């Protein structure tokens, strides 16, 4: 099924292609005949249009801009009002682009028949015969300034804080600080339970327990003297910390 549909699509496309080429039969043969004739013989045509940069006086940019037809095959210059004419172009199909170091203009393909009939269409390098009409004489509007530069990575507090590594560091810290406040540490049963779980977590009693130290440090200053004295008594099995 897929096959049939794709073939159908292909046939339809081919039909469209034939139809298009019928309309512009002389477009294909035209350039060959005109290109290889001597420059004086054969008809020469002109491509006309206007380039617009919204919100800017033409004097400010026309002196640095040029009109290039098919690379540098034919060159045109912009008038002081932004309009341009490229003279002496034989019939054929050309990509017309306005080059300016500051502004970006979309290129346009212009077809000239051997009789001098003109049309403009969007440039499509993949589907070369696709026709999406553009106004002729050309109206080329700048689509904004060129973006040549990358943005520097700037250092901001938010970037720093949203960094996963920092998050991983800060969150446990908050828990350590806040947990003793939430859970009532004065309850002896609870404390026993906690101590048991702590012992289970740190099987090596010789190793200094950083988290506990931190807890002591932060909760101790605000906590009652009772807590601190009782906690110091509970430190019995941890001589490593006491030694400090």
């Amino acid at each position: 099924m897929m096959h049939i549909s794709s073939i159908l699509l292909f046939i339809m496309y081919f039909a469209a292609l034939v139809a298009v080429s019928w309309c512009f039969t002389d477009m294909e043969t035209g350039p060959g005949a005109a290109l290889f004739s001597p420059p004086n013989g054969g008809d020469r045509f002109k491509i006309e249009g206007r380039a617009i940069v919204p919100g800017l006086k033409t004097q400010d940019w026309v002196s640095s801009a040029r009109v290039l037809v098919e690379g540098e095959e034919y060159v045109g210059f912009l008038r002081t009002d932004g309009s341009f004419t490229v003279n002496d172009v034989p019939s054929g199909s050309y990509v017309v682009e306005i080059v300016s170091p500051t502004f970006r203009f979309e290129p346009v393909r212009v077809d000239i028949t051997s009789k001098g009939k003109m049309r403009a269409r969007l440039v499509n390098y993949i589907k070369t015969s696709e026709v999406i009409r553009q106004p002729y004489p050309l109206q080329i509007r700048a689509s904004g300034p060129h973006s040549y530069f990358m943005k520097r990575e700037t250092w901001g507090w938010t970037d720093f804080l949203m960094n996963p590594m920092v998050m991983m560091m800060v969150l446990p810290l908050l828990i350590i600080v806040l947990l003793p406040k939430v859970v009532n540490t004065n309850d002896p049963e609870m404390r026993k339970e906690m101590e048991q779980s702590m012992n289970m977590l740190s099987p090596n009693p010789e190793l200094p327990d950083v988290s506990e130290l931190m807890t002591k440090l932060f909760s101790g200053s605000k906590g009652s003297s009772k807590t601190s004295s009782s906690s110091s008594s509970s430190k019995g099995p941890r001589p490593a910390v006491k030694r400090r």
Partner: protein
Amino acid sequence: MLTTITNPQRRRINFRLPLCAEEVKVSAMAKLIFLWLKCLVSCCIVEAVFEDQVGKFDWRQQYVGKIRFSHFDSHVQSSKKVLMATEKNVFAALNTRTGELFWRHVDKTGPEGNIDAFLLHGQDALLVVGNGRLLRSWDISVGGLNWEVVLDSGSFQSACLIGQQDTVKHVAVLKKTVISVHYLSNGHQKWIENLPESENIDYQALYSGGNGEVYVLGIVPHSHIAIVVYSMEDGEIIKQTSVEAPWLSNIQTSCAVVGQGMITCVDSLTMSLYTLDMHTQSKMTQIPLQSLGLEVTPHFHPVLVSHQPNAAHQPLSEFLLQLGPEHHLLLQLNSGQMVVLRDFKPVRHMTPVLTSCVFVSESEKRKCVLFLLQGWIMASYIIKVPLLNPVFQIYVQAFLKKDDSVSYRVLVQTEDHTLTFIHLPGRVMWTREEALSEVVTMEMVELPLTGTQAELEGEFGKKADGLLSMVLKRLSSQLILLQAWVSHLWKLFYDARKPRSQVKNEISIENLSRDEFNLQKMMVMVTASGKLFGIDSKTGSILWKQYLNNVPSNAAFKLMVQRTTAHFPHPPQCTLLIKDKDTGLATLHVFNPIFGKKSHITPPALTQPILQSLMLPLMDQDYAKVLLLIDDQYKVTAFPSSKNVLQQLQETDLTTTQIWEVIIPTEIQKVVTVKGKRSNEHVHSQGRVMGDRSVLYKYLNPNLLAVVTESTDVHQERSFIGILLIDGVTGRIIHEAVQRKAKGPVHVVHSENWVVYEYWSTKSRRNEFSVIELYEGMELYNSTVFSSLDRPHAPHVLQQSYIFPSAISAMEATLTEKGITSRHLLIGLPSGGILSLPKMFLDPRRPEIVSEQSREENLIPYAPELLIRTEWFINYNQSVSRVRGIHTAPSGLESTCLVVAYGLDIYQTRVYPSKQFDVLKDDYDYMLISSVLFALFFATMISKRLAEVKLLNRAWR
């Protein structure tokens, strides 16, 4: 058909180019891939300039070329513009204060953009372009076009402004058969008339005296002058006369209009001046030169120069007559009376039409004598300006100062295309080296080490002589380094106290030395005019220049570095091969690339036409690489040709024998380019790791040549381009490919195991890129050494093609020290941008369907169209016009490649194809890192103190 040698082991070419029939499928898929690609491109392989790096590592110099016509903008008294139309088809306005460009318009190259005439009237500059095809009017204040009209065909003769009642409103253009008059305001044609009897009469000159009449002067050589007078209003012929002049052959070289419409001619045979009043007389008056007490230098064609300051008025009655190479006269013609005003005997050079009449002496090269004549004021000045080369042309603007004294500005163009701008007392305002607008070839040479650096280097080179002395030497060298560092710090401190404007990092030849990472190099540039330049790559300042006088105009150049700076105390040595393209005769110019001085080594005299030259990797006892020159007798000349060299070559009589031959039928195709690999290229990895962890080995044949051919048939259906990969040692054709319905110009880059080429597809009317990559396969035949003679297996060939949405003017690949960094292609575009395209996009292994393995390998899925992103322009908005070549050179840093693009302009920059992985980035935040360190340090101190207090408190409890 293509070759006589067949290649039995030809591989299947994986050629992928979207054809018309596949277009629908391709484009649908292309959209999907495009999306994928955009994600990929934007997130991982972006390499671009940051905004704060503008001008930090790069510089651009803009040129206009050799001047053909020049006028000063005298419309406004305070104007600072000088306008010039050049032989490079450029029309530009320069700032007279600084010598920089206000604006510049670059037309098509070749005869179609050729500027035939340049007239200036007020704000409007009129140019006749393309052998009289176009008439353009430019607004010189803005630099925009006023109007452009197409003129009728016919070869251009002359153009002039036509004035009437003190105003100039029209311009007349004279062609072989017609004369047309146009309005200055809009270019519309006022009238056009056929010239009478144009098949017999050669019309050469136009004249208008400001009275509403246009005079056309024609000539029938050695018979008579024809004068046709047209009415300005309607183009009617008012009068038509013919005057006998059997001695005259050319009006433009022998005659001028002087005073009130007097044609004045000079003839060397009859030794006479002839005058004719165009209004009244019908016969020429002969004034023998002897009657004025003058005589012509034998074999010299005398020249007449007159001057018409304003088109609405008559020319001055004074004119210049040159009777010999060093003999000038100022004469006056007043009501038929010829008077010699002044005789300038020892002055040689004179320029034709100017705002003022000017002589320049050349007898003493360092002194210019300048005479100015304006109206009735005649002044003479002697200016002393060191002009190194003979004066070629000179343009003068004379003006009245506020105190009514005459002052002048002079623009001098010397034979070596240097422009010098001089103010009144002989003060040089600026100079421009316009020869640099046509750089032909260049090399980048490393700078020498300084004394201390050389001493340090020398320590490692010497043989060890005892432990103690080694230690002592080490200590002393460290001391020297410390000393240098301290003096550097002192200099920094000293400079910091001075105001910023006074601190100048003057670079001169004396203090040139290599920097830490070898980023600063000497750019040796060879220009078409025969002038050589040494330019500092860091700042772009010209450190030395040398003009070679005897270079033929159609010379071909080849620049070779025979000895680098690495062989102290031997000086570095460059050799320039200059070959006359017509005769094939060549000369060698040997020089020191750092100082530009001609070497005392005498190169061999080359009496026979040279066919080919090549540099061998062999060195003689003085570490100079051997250059071989093959003449048309197939004899070989070696330079240097010492005994040592001949021993190494194992040959006493150097001759050539043919080893292999590949016949390419010339009636079908012609060879356009032959490209080998660059000798200083290094390839770091021998293969590529595939998705399944196996290795695909590259075919790295150093002898491989890429030969590009173009069909002789230019019809778009039958034209093709061919590419042959030939082993240079055996002549074996490794691979051949033909691109049908394609034509040149072809741009090729050949490097590592790949060839990239670009061509124009006549069928689809677009530019296409094609890449060929060669692989040995999964196993390497002989991994230690590559020999062309012992490679039984033909390489696997992969090829893929892409669409490129722009034309190309030059292409080159980046080059780094060790070849670890990924490669980029640098592509010069006609728009002026230099695109840095990652080679990753031109990889024939780009898959059509993404698989797990291809993703593992980081292959980009195939997309038919390559993108041009402005972020990839390494020169941001600094467009480079008409890029003719791109030169890449490695620096001391593996990540960094130095790039010079040359054409009409020169642009130098650095590129980092894999970003700067070996140095800290230039935006590295030292402040942040040090403040964080300090903060942490203090935090530990404080917390330690707090902990102590706390412990103490606890102990007391």
